[in-house]
C-alpha cells in the first residue's frame, strides 16, 4: 500500500476535477488528484492532444498537483479528516487529506430494448470513448439512437473518422427539440457549435420522435436495427449502434460518504459545498451541466475549499451556463413509450442476467437484489440501477463499501486499516 498525504484530495480528473485541483494548488495548497483512467481529461477530453485538454494538463503540472492516474477509489470516509482508499494494478492506495472535492462525472443512461445486449450495441458516449481510444470505424455503418445533444458530436466524429452514419434517431419530437433554439440564440458560442455540427452532419438521415424496436443480430453481432414512431416502422442495416438516453451523475462515492442528494445528483450550495463538512462537489456529479459548467464549478469548489475569495463573475457565469443546460433538459425529456420498449425476457441487469420481467415484479431496488441478484454483479448496479430508477421510479442508493469491485486480498488490506489512525499532514511514503 502506498500512502499519500495532502491538504486537498480531488476525485476525478475531468474538466471539473482539473479546474478544482488547479484552483487549490495555484493558491498554495498541496493537492492530490485521483482518477481511474490512464490520463487526465475525463470523458470529454479523452485522447485529446491539443487545447483545451493539453492546456489543463500543463496547468495541473505547473501548479504542482500530484496526479495519480489509474486509481479506482473504492471507499471514502469523512469525519475529522478525509480518508480514501483506492486500488491500482493489484495494489492499494491510501489518501489522507483535510478536505475533499468530488468530481466523479457522469455515465450514460442505457435503456433496455430487444437485442440491446448484442455485441456492437454501445452507448453513444461509449462509441465516442471507443473511437477516441482508437477504434477503427472506417466504412462501418453506424446508427446513433436514443436521446440528447451528445448524439451530434459523436455522429460528426464517427463520420470524420470514415464511418457511414446511416441514421440519427432521437426520441424527442422535432417540436420539442426546437425549444433549444431560444436558449441557443442567447449563447453565441453554442450557436456557432450547433451550426458547425449541422454542416458536418449534412446528408445524415434524421428521425425525430422515433425509438428502437429491436436489434437484428447475425452471427452473434449487430446486423441491423428496427425503429418506430408508434405508427410506422423502419429498418436499417448496420454494424454498430450507439444507444443511450442521456447522462446520470456518478454519486456512488458521495453516497458512501453520506452526502445528501438532490434529484439524481449531489446536493450542493452556491459555493459547491455538499451536505458533509469538508466535502465539495463540482461538475456532472453535482448535476449534468456540460463542460463549461464543470470548469466553472471546479474553480468555485477549489476556491471555496482553500477559503479563497470567489469571484462573483464565476458564480454568474456558472448560473448562466446552467440555465442553458436546463433548456436542453426540457427539449430532450424522455417520452413515456420508452418505459415499454422492453417488457419481458430482455436483460435488465447485464452482470447477473436478470430480465426486465423478473425485476419488474420486485417491490424495490433492495428486493430486486435479493430476489434476482439485480445489481449484485461486477458493475455494482451502475448500469441497471439507473435503468431501474427510471423504469420503476425506485430510489437506488448503495452506501456500503467497496464502491467498485475489489479483490479479496486488496479488500483485506483496506479493512485492516484504522480509517483515521494516520490522518492529517505527513510525508509521502
Amino acid at each position: 500500500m502506498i500512502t499519500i498525504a495532502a491538504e486537498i484530495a480531488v476525485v476525478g480528473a475531468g474538466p471539473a476535477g482539473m479546474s478544482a485541483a488547479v484552483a487549490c494548488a495555484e493558491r498554495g495548497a498541496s493537492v492530490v488528484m485521483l482518477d481511474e483512467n490512464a490520463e487526465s481529461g475525463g470523458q470529454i477530453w479523452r485522447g485529446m492532444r491539443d487545447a483545451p485538454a493539453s492546456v489543463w494538463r500543463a496547468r495541473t503540472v505547473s501548479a504542482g498537483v500530484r496526479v495519480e492516474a489509474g486509481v479506482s477509489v473504492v471507499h471514502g470516509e469523512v469525519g475529522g479528516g478525509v480518508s480514501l482508499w483506492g486500488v491500482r494494478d493489484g495494489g492499494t492506495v491510501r489518501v489522507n487529506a483535510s478536505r475533499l472535492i468530488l468530481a466523479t462525472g457522469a455515465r450514460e443512461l442505457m435503456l433496455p430494448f430487444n437485442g440491446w445486449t448484442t455485441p456492437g450495441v454501445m452507448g453513444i458516449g461509449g462509441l465516442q470513448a471507443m473511437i477516441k481510444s482508437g477504434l477503427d470505424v472506417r466504412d462501418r455503418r453506424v446508427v446513433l439512437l436514443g436521446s440528447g445533444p451528445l448524439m451530434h458530436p459523436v455522429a460528426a466524429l464517427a463520420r470524420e473518422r470514415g464511418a457511414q452514419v446511416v441514421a440519427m434517431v432521437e426520441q424527442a419530437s422535432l417540436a420539442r427539440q426546437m425549444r433549444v433554439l431560444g436558449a441557443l440564440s442567447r449563447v453565441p458560442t453554442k450557436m456557432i457549435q450547433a451550426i458547425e455540427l449541422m454542416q458536418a452532419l449534412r446528408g445524415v438521415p434524421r428521425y425525430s420522435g422515433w425509438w428502437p424496436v429491436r436489434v437484428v443480430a447475425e452471427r452473434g453481432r449487430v446486423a441491423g436495427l428496427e425503429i418506430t414512431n408508434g405508427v410506422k416502422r423502419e429498418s436499417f442495416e448496420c454494424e454498430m449502434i450507439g444507444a443511450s438516453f442521456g447522462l446520470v451523475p456518478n454519486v456512488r462515492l458521495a453516497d458512501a460518504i453520506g452526502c445528501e442528494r438532490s434529484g439524481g445528483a449531489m446536493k450542493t450550495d452556491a459555493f459547491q459545498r455538499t451536505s458533509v463538512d469538508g466535502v465539495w462537489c463540482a461538475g456532472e456529479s453535482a448535476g449534468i451541466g456540460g463542460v463549461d459548467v464543470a470548469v466553472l464549478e471546479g474553480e468555485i469548489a477549489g476556491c471555496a475549499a482553500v477559503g479563497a475569495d470567489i469571484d462573483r463573475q464565476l458564480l454568474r457565469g456558472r448560473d448562466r451556463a446552467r440555465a442553458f443546460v436546463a433548456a436542453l433538459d426540457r427539449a430532450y425529456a424522455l417520452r413515456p413509450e420508452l418505459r415499454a420498449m422492453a417488457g419481458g425476457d430482455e436483460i435488465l441487469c447485464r452482470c447477473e442476467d436478470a430480465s426486465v420481467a423478473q425485476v419488474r415484479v420486485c417491490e424495490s431496488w433492495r428486493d430486486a437484489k435479493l430476489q434476482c441478484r439485480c445489481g449484485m454483479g461486477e458493475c455494482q448496479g451502475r448500469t441497471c440501477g439507473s435503468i431501474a430508477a427510471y423504469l420503476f421510479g425506485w430510489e437506488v442508493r448503495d452506501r456500503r463499501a467497496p464502491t467498485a469491485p475489489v479483490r479479496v486480498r486488496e479488500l483485506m488490506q483496506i479493512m485492516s486499516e484504522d480509517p483515521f489512525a494516520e490522518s492529517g499532514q505527513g510525508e509521502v511514503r
Partner: protein
Amino acid sequence: MNEWITMTIDGVPVRARRDWSVAVAIWNTSAVRGVRRAVGGELRAPVCGMGVCYECCVSIDGREKARSCMVMCREGMDVRTIGGEV
C-alpha cells in the same frame, strides 16, 4: 518512440498501437464481436467504453476480469477473450 507494438490476442500475435485500449485492439484486429460470456451464456462486448459496465472484461496477462476499455496496449501483452469460441 514506435507507436506500434506486438501483443497476442487469444494466442494470435497482432500489431496494435500503444494509444489503443485493449478493447479497441480486440475489435480493430478482428471484427465487432463478443469478448466475454454472460452468466446466462450470451456473448457480450464493450458498451460504455469508460469502465462503468464491465461488459468488456477479458483476461489480461493472467489477470481475470480486467476491463479491457481501461487498459492501454503494451508490448508483449497476453489477452484472452472468449474469441476461440466465436
